[in-house]
């Protein structure tokens, strides 16, 4: 893996993987401002597919598909990411299309795209799990853009004007930090001039983050959704956890491995699924962002099991906060977490995305090695201390179930 800086200052990571047929590109645009109206950034990325001054949306779609170029533009909590995957021989064309989208998107079809997004999100919310998860994010990141979900976007997106969108894009395009990462069977002597050619007009400046701070969650919040025909209760319970820059990051990765992030041998899986037969899906997730992070446990279970499941969560969370883990469990969790990291860069797309992400965060493209060293050095005392530090704080609970069972679980009064 090698690092270059393009003439316009864009940090560039290149990894050559010989004998791989497809090249992957991940380009990160940092978001320094909160969206003024909910759904603005999502609308923006959808409109990137809707044509440029040189290509109509249909021409763009045809050209991508005819050349088997996968273009995936994502809006995440802290950035917009363009991911491109193409056969090696099409790299020039893929970069030319990327340049065209970035420089020449017309953002036409504005009204139509709003209707499409509303329709897609309404369809997503017909899934009980998506509905509950959306509500959980709204609860854990109450009053913060990190918590904006589909429901709020459906309600707010029509208020966005084209001027709002153009203004926001100008900000991102002209003033934000960008970085790019490429993995594939590519020669740096060929790819660097191509990047200079196609990305030379993008401005790259390191600006301060103007986004709203995430306020602490000062009390436990319970949010419920009544869904009479639900066959399962959807339960999300979460806590605020630190961001990726935290000194506790490596410890939390292990905490998550032990509790339920990975596979068939975690504590939640063994206790709630294997021993108690409460669920098919039970897991924990740690999601660190730049401004904050959160950690949640999730179970989907027969509605009459809500209380038992919540007790199960409490028991496991209390256990990890109060009982020191054995040397064996810690060692196994370390080997598990470190071994699993090899999956994160198995393909060119995964590798470009990961190295690009670390570079985006300013941690350096080779952060993975440092992180593995940090994981190796975590002690069992750190596990218990970290668990106490964050799990003792307020939590957000979201439960979706038929009314009768919410009442039975004391989550709803008659």
């Amino acid at each position: 893996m090698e690092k270059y800086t393009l003439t316009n200052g864009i940090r560039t990571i290149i990894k050559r993987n010989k004998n791989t047929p497809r090249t992957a590109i991940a380009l990160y645009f940092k978001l320094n401002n909160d969206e003024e109206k909910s759904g603005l950034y999502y609308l923006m990325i959808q409109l990137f597919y809707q044509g440029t001054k040189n290509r109509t949306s249909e021409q763009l779609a045809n050209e991508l598909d005819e050349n088997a170029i996968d273009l995936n533009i994502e809006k995440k909590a802290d950035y917009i990411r363009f991911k491109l995957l193409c056969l090696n021989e099409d790299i020039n064309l893929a970069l030319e299309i990327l340049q065209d989208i970035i420089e020449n998107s017309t953002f036409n079809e504005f009204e139509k795209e709003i209707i499409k997004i509303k329709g897609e999100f309404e369809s997503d919310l017909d899934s009980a799990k998506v509905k509950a998860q959306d509500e959980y994010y709204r609860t854990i990141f109450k009053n913060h853009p990190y918590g904006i979900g589909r429901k709020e976007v459906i309600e707010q997106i029509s208020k966005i004007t084209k001027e709002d969108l153009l203004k926001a894009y100008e900000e991102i395009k002209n003033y934000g930090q960008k970085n790019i990462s490429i993995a594939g069977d590519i020669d740096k002597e060929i790819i660097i001039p191509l990047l200079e050619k196609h990305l030379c007009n993008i401005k790259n400046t390191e600006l301060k983050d103007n986004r709203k701070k995430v306020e602490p969650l000062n009390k436990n919040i319970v949010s419920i959704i009544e869904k009479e025909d639900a066959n399962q209760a959807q339960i999300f319970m979460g806590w605020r956890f630190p961001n990726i820059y935290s000194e506790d990051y490596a410890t939390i990765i292990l905490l998550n491995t032990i509790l339920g992030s990975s596979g068939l041998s975690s504590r939640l899986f063994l206790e709630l699924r294997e021993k108690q037969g409460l669920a098919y899906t039970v897991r924990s997730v740690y999601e660190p962002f730049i401004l904050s992070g959160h950690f949640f446990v999730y179970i989907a279970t027969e509605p009459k099991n809500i209380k038992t499941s919540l007790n199960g969560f409490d028991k496991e969370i209390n256990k990890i906060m109060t009982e020191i883990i054995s040397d064996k469990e810690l060692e196994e969790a370390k080997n598990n977490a470190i071994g699993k990291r090899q999956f994160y860069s198995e393909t060119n797309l995964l590798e470009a995305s990961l190295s690009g992400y670390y570079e985006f965060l300013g941690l350096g493209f080779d952060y993975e090695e440092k992180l593995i060293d940090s994981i190796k050095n975590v002690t069992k005392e750190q596990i218990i201390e970290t668990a106490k530090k964050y799990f003792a704080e307020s939590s957000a609970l979201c439960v979706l179930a038929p009314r009768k069972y919410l009442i039975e679980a004391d989550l709803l009064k008659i």
Partner: protein
Amino acid sequence: MKNIKKTLIKYPYLEKPVEIYERECGHKIVFAYKRGSLINISSWVKTGSINENDENNGISHFLEHLMFKGTNKHKAGEFDRILESRGAIVNAATWKDYTFYYVTIPKGSDERNFNDTLDLHADMMLDPIIPDNEIGEPFDIENPNIKTKRERHVVIEEIRMRKDQPWTKVYNQTNQNMYTTHPYKRDVIGNEQIISTITRECILDYYRTHYTPNNITTIIVGELNPDEIIPKVAKAFDFKGRKNRENDKYKIDIPTQTTKYVETYSRINTGFLMFGYLGAQAIDIKTCTILEMLALILGQGQSSRLYQELIEKAEKQIFNIVSTDYYHFRDGGNLFIQANFKPNEKENAINLIKEQIHKICTDGITEKELKKAKKKLKAGFAENSESVSDIAETIGFYMTVCNKLECVEEYMHAIEEITLEDIKNISQSYLDINKAVISVLMPESYKK
């Protein structure tokens, strides 16, 4: 190695040919060389819901869960713990024609991870004890006071989960109505009544019947030396004289001769619909490839016909989502068109899809569309050659459903050879708008 027949198959996008070793007992071992730090070991069994009936529907999938519940050497949970503590991903899946079990694990600096994974995997495949206390007592599904919940309940929760998924609901209705007698009509996961009562003896009997040497293919993918590992695999898979059995054959169902329409309801806000057509047997590589191309041209990607005509260029936004898929099955695949739409536009939605089907059958496709489909299918194959688990899945599919890996070569050849005429002929043979199964899931407020 004595009594092992070796065949080499040229496999696109891999550095070396794939090696197939057929043992005298019928067990097959396949090795694919793939550079990288991960290795994948999997075993594919030629059984799934295809071998089930109304009394034991769901048994293949339930057995898949129970295979993780220990052997005479390792108690339940050990397999998962040992392998996951080395960073492995361990899992299994059941579908209509097959069940497979896999471990993907970092190769490590010595042979330890390969050797231990192989031993544990072979042990699980050959000596599952499926203890009563892990299955759980049979119980009455109507009884709300069951205290001890074991694996039966886990599977029942999986069934419940699927009942809350609108796409699964609409798919199950389509699937059920596409067949008359063939076992494919049943949902792979089965139902609560069967899972709550099926006996251990029944499950063991099913295992003994179907987990025979000639029904199992073990696949190894990674940066390994086949001369070293193949003897180890053959040794680990000691079937101890286990008898083979001919697989059952089923009468191939013919497509419905009139359009079958099914409407169901749920507490949702949008409408879900699915058109289903029976396709060709998986071994008919050329026809299946043409049907794949048709699915791709009709509804895969933003340039596809359905997306462009029904979403991008639509004067009125009726559709939220529209796409197509082709599923390959031994006794005949399925082509599906699925859509999510505004429920007050149901009739329009159905007619608009019918128009597009009619158009492709009548006018065929363009040269440009054919070229696109060919390139996308090839790129799709390249994509499936990027990870050890995807390579193993492709090999497992061809070895298990088509019975031979040579189909990979046939597939690449078919992509090159297919003409506009072929596409038109096949679309007319398979996609008659008056012979579709149409399943619609509507919001309850639309119930008459």
